């Protein structure tokens, strides 16, 4: 299967939140109680039933104030920390290169929540499971574009084959010039959600500048995990060799039945 990429061109985003709503609609997720924070940000953050949202950000520039809109959600990493730590295989790589989630296997351990470099998975106490965007796997399989891309009225969200989309992203950056850059293809093995950012990555809220699989996760999964079986196996083998080479430590025979024989 060919790998796919969803390209989010923030320079074309008007913050209309159609994608947010389309996501809820397709995935049949109700709204949650929200609260007014004095900004346009609503809901305030990703939730177990809000898998994507527009982050509204006011930044000061020379003419006063301008808005930055960034659609946040799962980046679908190639080298995905969540898949690495998931103990049950609930999180997995699909043949499209995206990260799927099989809720029947999720045990609510929340390991993915702390492992994700983008802080995406959200835990739901009621179902004791974790939720995140699956890039509308059911739609991709039916040869449809993800709901958010379908709903986007400005063409800020587009979807297609990976290499073509990367090419498109770089072409758009060239067109925009200035600080514009492609975000996503250079780290964690390449993400399957790419941004065309109009500003430098550090300007955007909640967007890590150089995301990576946490060093702790690598230490744990790639070194200590195999080491646990290797060392236990080594000990078992060593014990066997010790028994046949050195022999067990036996009490001296002659004093076995004597009492107090000094």
């Amino acid at each position: 299967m060919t790998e796919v990429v969803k390209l989010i061109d923030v320079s074309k985003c008007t913050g209309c939140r159609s994608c947010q709503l389309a996501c809820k609609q397709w995935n049949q997720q109700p709204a949650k109680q929200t609260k007014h924070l004095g900004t346009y940000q609503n809901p305030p953050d990703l939730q177990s039933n809000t898998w994507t949202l527009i982050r509204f950000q006011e930044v000061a520039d020379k003419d006063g104030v301008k808005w930055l809109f960034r659609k946040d959600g799962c980046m679908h990493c190639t080298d995905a920390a969540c898949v690495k730590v998931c103990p049950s295989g609930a999180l997995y790589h699909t043949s499209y290169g995206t990260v799927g989630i099989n809720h029947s296997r999720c045990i609510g351990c929340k390991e993915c929540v702390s492992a994700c470099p983008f802080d995406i998975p959200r835990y739901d106490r009621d179902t004791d499971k974790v939720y995140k965007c699956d890039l509308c796997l059911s739609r991709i399989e039916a040869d449809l574009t993800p709901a958010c891309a379908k709903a986007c009225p400005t063409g800020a969200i587009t979807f297609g084959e990976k290499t073509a989309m990367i090419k498109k992203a770089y072409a758009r950056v060239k067109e925009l010039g200035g600080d514009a850059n492609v975000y996503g293809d250079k780290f964690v093995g390449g993400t399957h959600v790419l941004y065309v950012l109009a500003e430098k990555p550090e300007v955007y809220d909640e967007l890590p500048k150089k995301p990576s699989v946490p060093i702790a996760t690598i230490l744990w999964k790639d070194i200590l995990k195999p080491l646990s079986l290797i060392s236990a196996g080594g000990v078992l083998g060593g014990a066997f060799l010790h028994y046949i080479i050195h022999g067990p430590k036996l009490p001296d025979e002659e004093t076995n039945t004597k009492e107090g024989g000094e």
Partner: protein
Amino acid sequence: MRKGLIKATDSFERIVHWCLAISCLILCITGLGMMFQSFNFIGTLMGGLKSLKYVHNFTGIFFAVSLFFTIRMWWREAGVLDLPDDWEWIKVAGGYLWHVDKVPEAGKYNVGQKAFFLVVAGFGIIMILTGLIMWSPLSFPAWLVRWMFVFHALGFVAIFAFFFIHLYLGTVGSPGSVDAMLTGWVTRAWLKKQHPKWLREMEENGTLEVFGEEKPGAGHGHGH
């Protein structure tokens, strides 16, 4: 019980040891079920991986209680090195690894046993603390939780490997030892070989309890 056997452990020690051993074993097995997807089938025995998670977490509490009593009961005897005698023992590895003409006499616990106690006590505490944080990861910063998994895995590497050493040396590697855990009564010959200094101390202090003989300190025999 046979006449002439010597009491090495009391029933409280044996119960605590079994509690620690069983909980530790359950934790290792269920932990493996979550650490390796190829061991996920262990969860099937418990009605699914989610149930396995609960078995693991709540057995952890049982382990914590067992470890508390273990440390309180044994730290004086097994948690402190007895220098310089223990240093002599370390230099020849207790005679376990190569031929040694005269192995330094061990007291109630030899240095190997002390090392095992310290590993279980030290890493056991680490397992409990990291485990508790991993149990409610959303209440702590993500970077901290990430490192908890590293230390939890490190503790597993140490405890799992040491467990097999302990199992070997407690059974086939040192015949007669397992009785100290099962019934508490061991042979004099075994004590003389394994813990000669302790045997001598008990004889000198009059605390030696021999099956079929009058209890020490019961008013007769040895004075104090």
